[in-house]
């Protein structure tokens, strides 16, 4: 089965410093892929490269076989790849419903159909109580859920979630995991960046580990946690020596 997304030897240099260095991987259709690594490993930068937010220094990205490296963010989104931001970016003056409508407008120009789509998505993520509230008045957790809903409203094929569950209470994390499973069930492929190991381990079928911009490990959750290099990357040299 041809991979839905192919990342081929992608690098990104910020003033000569490689934030992402020669990373390659494939994403299978309808898979949930985890992306982990210590802070500053290049996870968000990789998201920025795939979503066209930053230009790629070297390498290519293929979506269903055709090149999308060099596409503008809006073009990448209309192709079907959408991302959420680690630092949430709500449209403060607009209500929650209007925020989600902006996403829905990606697929329809008609305001009424967009409003219906928005209401559906809001109910799906459980923000219906706040539909008429202005986004700037939401709590952090609800803003994350709004980010999630907005991305969903664009009816993506690939959904890239950047620490959507950071700062949530355990029961909220479980709700999010449930949501992600439902989203995957509807045929959407998902890449998740998270630091909450419990969440990553339970939801992801495959995990990539990034460290200093390089891919140091790939595999099922169990394989990855026992991998020496991964432990070193997280816990540092001597600690791992005596395990």
């Amino acid at each position, binding site marked *: 089965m041809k991979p839905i997304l192919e990342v081929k030897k992608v690098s990104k240099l910020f003033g000569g410093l490689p934030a992402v260095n020669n990373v390659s991987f494939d994403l299978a259709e309808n898979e949930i892929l985890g992306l982990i690594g210590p802070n500053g490993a290049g996870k968000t930068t990789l998201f920025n490269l795939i979503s066209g937010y*930053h230009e790629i220094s070297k390498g290519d990205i293929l979506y269903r076989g055709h090149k999308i490296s060099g596409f503008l*963010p809006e073009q990448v989104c209309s192709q079907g790849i959408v991302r959420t931001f680690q630092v949430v970016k709500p449209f403060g003056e607009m209500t929650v419903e209007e925020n989600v409508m902006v996403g829905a407008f990606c697929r329809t120009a008609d305001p009424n159909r967009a409003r219906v789509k928005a209401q559906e998505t809001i109910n799906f993520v459980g923000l219906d109580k706040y539909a008429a509230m202005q986004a700037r008045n939401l709590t952090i957790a609800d803003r994350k859920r709004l980010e999630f809903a907005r991305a969903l409203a664009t009816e993506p094929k690939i959904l890239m979630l950047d620490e959507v569950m950071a700062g949530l209470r355990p029961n909220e994390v479980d709700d999010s995991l449930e949501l992600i499973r439902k989203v995957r069930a509807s045929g959407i492929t998902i890449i998740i960046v998270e630091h909450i190991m419990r969440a990553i381990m339970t939801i992801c079928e495959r995990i990539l580990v990034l460290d200093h911009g390089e891919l140091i490990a790939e595999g099922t959750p169990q394989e990855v946690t026992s991998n020496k290099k991964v432990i070193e990357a997280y816990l540092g040299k001597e600690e791992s020596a005596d395990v």
Partner: protein
Amino acid sequence: MEIWMQILVNGILTGGIFALISIGLTLIFGVMNIINFAHGEFLMISMYLVYWMNVKMGMDPYVAIIFIIPIMFVVGLVVYKATLNPIIERSELFTILMTVALMILLQNLALMLWNADIRSINIDYAASAIGTENIRFGITKIASFAIAIGTAIGLMIILSRTWIGKSIKATSQNRTAAKLMGVDTIRTYTIAFALGIATVGIAGAALAPIFSIYPTVGTQFGTASFVVVVLGGLGNVPGAIIGGLIIGLIDSISGFLLPVGFKEAIYLGVFLLVLLLKPNGLFGQGAAGGGR
């Protein structure tokens, strides 16, 4: 051939004037992202002050600089505290409109207090020049050129050596980060603005012998100084000197080759080109570009 030499000399000396006017602006615009439309009006105030000192106390304009710096520093402090400080947190639209309101206010206050007479300081060396038969250097222009260099050096020393200078630089790069490091950004902004206005005061003193003084004289210098600041790069004081020289040369050369009426249009055209091609200015590190 000598005509071209003179044109270059004119360009450099006029460049000195543009640079001198723009140093204050590059500090205010560079550090605080405030487009100060009343920049020309502060220049006008300082020119009037120098005029009264010359008329009432017979003080030479260049000597008056010593008194102008503290006076204009205080003027900058008061104006900033009264009008700009309360709204500094809001979007730059409000600060721009506040400076437009200040422009209207200062122009008409000057008209009310000192009426509309067109005054000038007639010190004997005002129009004299040195140099050969065909290549002349105006005394007042050389003086303003030297003052521009001196002011730039002085400002750079303040910015790099003194504590307040470092906090101004830090705040201009990243206000929130500076706040985290314990920099009192409100005080820093106030001093940066006052310092900028004091620099404009020096420019006013240096220009008083060259130009006539009347309530709306400030409008002449408005647009040109923005062009210089963006050309030299935001907050980049040496950049303002070089930007000033470039605009001075363009002014002199294009004025000679084309009808003089188009001069301003040409360096505004250059300004647009620079903004689009090298958004961070020729040397500066301002963030004019919009990314992708």
